[in-house]
């Protein structure tokens, strides 16, 4: 039998749409394969589990060469909103859920959802500012304890 992965712990550190989805898809996909999964939200990635912000995660239109249009254009007011809307519509067609629904779904698969203590302190947040699916606010040391024996993926 070939080698198998039994457990993954995925760190999401970015707060842009394109910085967030890959980690969520990997966590959800891990659970679908029967792999144990933990998600750890740190720095701007914390927006994904922030009650007031998780519905407003946008695609980066400045400094994002993958979009193939001029940085000057990307900086114009409203461009990020329009591009985000365009991307969300495309994803909806592929049945990729919006971020708030996706994180709820991932929690329902039994994956662990954790927020980084240093980032929560940095942004002066409390547990109450975070969505109910967040199981705990943990330190980096506690994250390593959780991740022990599995793979760690940083995004």
């Amino acid at each position, binding site marked *: 039998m070939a080698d198998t992965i039994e457990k993954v712990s995925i760190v999401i550190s970015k707060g842009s749409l394109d910085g967030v989805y890959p980690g969520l*898809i990997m966590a*959800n*996909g891990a*659970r*679908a*394969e*029967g792999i144990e999964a933990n998600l750890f939200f740190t720095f701007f990635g914390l927006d994904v589990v922030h009650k007031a912000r998780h519905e407003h995660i946008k695609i980066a239109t400045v400094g994002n060469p993958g979009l193939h249009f001029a940085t000057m254009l990307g900086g114009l007011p409203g461009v990020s909103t329009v591009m985000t809307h365009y991307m969300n519509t495309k994803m909806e067609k*592929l*049945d*990729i*859920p919006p971020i708030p629904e996706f994180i709820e*779904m991932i929690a*329902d*698969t*039994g994956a662990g959802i954790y927020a980084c203590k240093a980032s929560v302190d940095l942004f002066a947040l409390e547990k109450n500012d975070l969505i109910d699916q967040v199981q705990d606010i943990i330190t980096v040391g506690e994250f390593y304890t959780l991740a022990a024996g599995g793979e760690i993926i940083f995004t």
Partner: protein
Amino acid sequence: MPTTTLASTNVELNDEGFFVHPEQWNEEMAPELARQEGIDELTEGHWKVIRFMRDEFLAKGAGPSVRMLAKTSGISIKELYQLFPKGPAKIAAKIAGIPKPRGCI
């Protein structure tokens, strides 16, 4: 490809344990396939998912991935994972004798 005997019938499985010929499957094989996946007893809840996966495959040519399974069957994601902790779509497809669903979501 490995051949195995289920319910006194020879069937062909691929390297991951999925049926190569879904038409070789019948319901009598399901309990043994389930035991191999760590499910000792198939409840009515399990059967509902297994039959749903099978019907979707027969109707559409492919079984659904987890999100689509939950959406179309009306069984919640939580319940699906309680029934099949090792991956609802994957394990139910294996027990239902159909190919592994190929969705990313």
